[in-house]
């Protein structure tokens, strides 16, 4: 882990999904902080200040949507992505913080390079690349 590595925060309660996305993104050179619940992630998000935060929708406690709304208040420069198994249409609240349909990834994600491309894109906009 170097200072120059871009950090990504990941929230998913499914162990397999969390592990394989972490493995993929680490192979891409990102530093990944993975959490099983929204509550844990919220405690550390402003310290981590990730370039991108990827959240599942259905989580054991707080759901992904509320998590992103709270997280974006704590870490407004982070780009937020939803990774969900539901047929989902983005709510007005999430659109209001700048999310668009291209920020929603439906499970199962066939090809994780779509996710890494999206992260690079957000990082480029933030001027971190």
């Amino acid at each position, binding site marked *: 882990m170097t200072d120059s590595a871009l950090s990504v925060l990941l929230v998913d309660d*499914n162990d*397999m*999904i969390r592990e*394989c*996305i972490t*493995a*993929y993104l*680490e*192979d891409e050179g990102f530093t990944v902080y993975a959490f099983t619940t929204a509550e844990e992630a919220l405690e550390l998000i402003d310290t981590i200040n990730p370039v991108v935060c990827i959240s599942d929708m259905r989580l054991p406690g707080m759901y992904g949507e509320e998590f992103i709304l709270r997280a974006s208040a704590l870490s407004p420069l982070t780009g937020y992505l939803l990774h969900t*198994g*539901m*047929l989902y249409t983005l709510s007005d609240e999430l659109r209001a913080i700048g999310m668009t349909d291209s920020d929603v990834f439906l*499970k*199962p*994600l*066939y*090809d*994780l390079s779509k996710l890494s491309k999206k992260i690079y894109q957000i990082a480029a906009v933030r001027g971190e690349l």
Partner: protein
Amino acid sequence: MPQRATETFFNSASRYRTLVENSCDIIFSLDFEGRFAYVSPAWKSLLGHELSEVVGHNFREFVDPEDIPRCEEVFMTVIRTNAMQEMTYRVQHADGSWRQHTSRVNRHRDENGEKTIFGTSHDVTERLFFEELISRTEKMTMISGMAAGMAHEINNPLGAILQNAQNIERRVSTSIPANVQAAAEVGVSLDLIHAYMQKRGIFDFINHIRTAGIKASEIITNMLQFSRRSDADSENVDLSTFLDKVLELAGSDYDMKKKYGFQKIELQRLYSAALPEVHLSVSGMEQVLLNILKNAAQALAATETPIITVRTRGVKGMAVIEIEDNGPGMDEKTRQRIFEPFFTKKEIGAGTGLGLSVAHQIVTKGHHGIISVRSRPGEGCCFTIKLPMQGRG
């Protein structure tokens, strides 16, 4: 007191007559041979015949032959026991269609000692249809809820399968520095590992895992969309794309595969390229087409080279969909009754006999369209659906 009042009321024959003649149920009397001695005017409004076409005729002329043995049993019981009997049976309307009637009959001996059978008949066709429809809708709602839940649960493991296959592939790639470093640490050459995996077809296997996973996920997405749609989801659709989707859905239906061998049937698609988009209820029309395809697949069970042809064309402002099979076809009597509720040629348990009647409702009431069927024994069967191209306005 009340009893005396009742007696006084019924002293008048004209009151009786008015009651009988205004009843919306049929009131009838039969002799012991089963011939109608009297039928009330309600017969004409419920079954269409002139009363003169009924009086003097045997009830057996009007009842569905399949129901005659049951009717006869009731008839004989009434003659023997003088106890009120009730039964529901099918009776033919003057226009050839079949109605379900519930009749109550009893033996009567009048003041002159003359014995007849008296009865009333009530038309229960609609009620039975909607009762069955409601119970089926409830079942469907439950099943689609379960299917949606299942589909969602399957997406996570499926994601893990797909993404881990991708990770395995990447972990032997020389372009990732961590791989090169780890290989060096354990003293093997990444290039050689790569060459070995290539030689033994391991990358192909990984690819198969991904292809199969993607296929499974497409099936689930289809299912999820099918179960989530409501009836109010009318939209403009391109018929060719829509029909392809329905055929794909039919191909992944468990019953279609296991019971009816749908994958053995050759599908011919003859779509007109010139059709404009058609406004339709996606879930409704999916149900219609799946029902017809299921019927076709069942009919083709014993056909050597089973073929289903799906055709589209435009005729006079109508979009026409034809689904034709090369199965055994059906006789004229069956063809006429095929859209009637509860009409089924299948064994008990194989079908409710509602599928095509619901299809008929959806096409005619829901889309202002026309559904018809053309068939002859030995010449296959062709369902035609015509939908107005400007939609339901």
